[in-house]
């Protein structure tokens, strides 16, 4: 009975590891989509409202996910994603409207590229991770039995 429970536990644990890896991939895509939306909103705020840097950051700080992305506390973003945020923040406010929009558009292009690649990875690997987790758990359980 104990052996059976142990095996079941191992299967559940391995499946959960697979699901968590799969969720991390989904979360990365979601964060990239939010970052894309933030960059698009910033362009609108600069172009039509001439909002200052503090007005822009105040707006994003109201949302938990956006705030974490801005502060570099979002762990689901890859290094490349974090570097886009870093570039965006370091250049924000340093030039005229045209310069700012060009800079943000460049960030947006990189972000879109990352989102597409993340979406492809998500489609290809999400189910794989979940199934692998379950299979690995089952394999260990069989070995133990």
């Amino acid at each position, binding site marked *: 009975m104990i052996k059976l429970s142990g095996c079941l536990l191992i299967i559940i644990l391995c499946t959960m590891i697979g699901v968590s890896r799969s969720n991390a991939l989904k979360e990365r895509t979601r964060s990239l989509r939010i970052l894309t939306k933030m960059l698009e909103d910033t362009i609108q705020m600069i172009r039509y409202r001439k909002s200052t840097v*503090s007005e822009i950051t105040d707006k994003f700080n109201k949302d938990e996910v956006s705030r974490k992305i801005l502060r570099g506390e979002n762990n689901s973003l890859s290094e490349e994603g974090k570097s886009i945020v870093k570039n965006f923040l370091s250049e924000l406010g*340093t030039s005229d409207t045209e310069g700012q929009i060009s800079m943000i558009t460049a960030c947006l292009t990189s972000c879109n590229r990352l989102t597409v690649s993340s979406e492809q990875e998500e489609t290809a690997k999400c189910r794989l991770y979940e199934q692998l987790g379950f299979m690995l758990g089952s394999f260990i359980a069989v070995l133990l039995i």
Partner: protein
Amino acid sequence: MVAINSIKSKLTAALPLLDCKLRSAIDNIPDHELSKLHEIRLRRGGKLSVSAYGSEYFVTPAGQLRSSPEKAVDVTPEEIEHTYREALQNSVYSFEKEICRGYVTYEGGCRVGFCGKAVCTADEHLTSVKEISSVNIRIAKEVIGCADELYNKLFSQGLTSVLIAGPPASGKTTVLRELCRKLSENYRISLIDERNEIAAMYNGVPQNDIGYKTDVFSSYPKAEAMMTAVRVMSPQIMICDEIGSDDELHSFEYALNSGIFLIAACHAGGMDELTRRKTLAALIEQKAFKKVVFLGNGALISKITACYDMGESIDDKA
């Protein structure tokens, strides 16, 4: 007669513009001298100086005001850059118009003026300023009571349209602000503050006391603001500073024909100078202003030196 209202609080609001070393030197200036400060000046590679008592003084790290630059606080390029970026709220793109105009209004109504190397287009159109070499922080002053003489003389019998003229630094803007505050106790006012000097709006809040019944059109082109004010705010009085450009004539006529009283200010030392300017001459010709008042400068700052009733002098102290 004149009471200086909260100059120290205006100065305190301006201190974040300065880097630590400069801020500490200004902070060390004794209170009785601090309240007389008019401007804080930074020059790249120069010394920290202030304008007070009608002269410019250098400031030592201990806050002493000296005529000689020796022992005064050095101003580094980084400190100039700090002030410039702080004045622009780290958002160059939000202040493109102000950069070309040469000054920005900061919290508390202080005006940060700057100069450097102009960036121009091929047709000599100024697009930006780089390599900022000098910064002048003008501490905002509200002089409560400075318009009492003018108010009693012109508005004791009711409303009238007035043109306030005077040479530079004759207190025209300060008088306009004070008139706005006093008149808004009884009348609805639209304040056309193209240069953001009268109300000194910061984040949508007037930094100066302009009264409770005043609607502010801040940084609007004057002509457009006047037309919009008439249409949307139905004012009883319209106040605007620095009038005289050609495109304003039509808007003035529109406002006057809408039954609104105008109070405006312009640069002019005398009636001759006024009538030499096309728009002003046309407005005077049309009797748009019932009174034309001249203010003095120096010891006569904010004081009436001459008052004309539709072109005829009724009082001439000059």
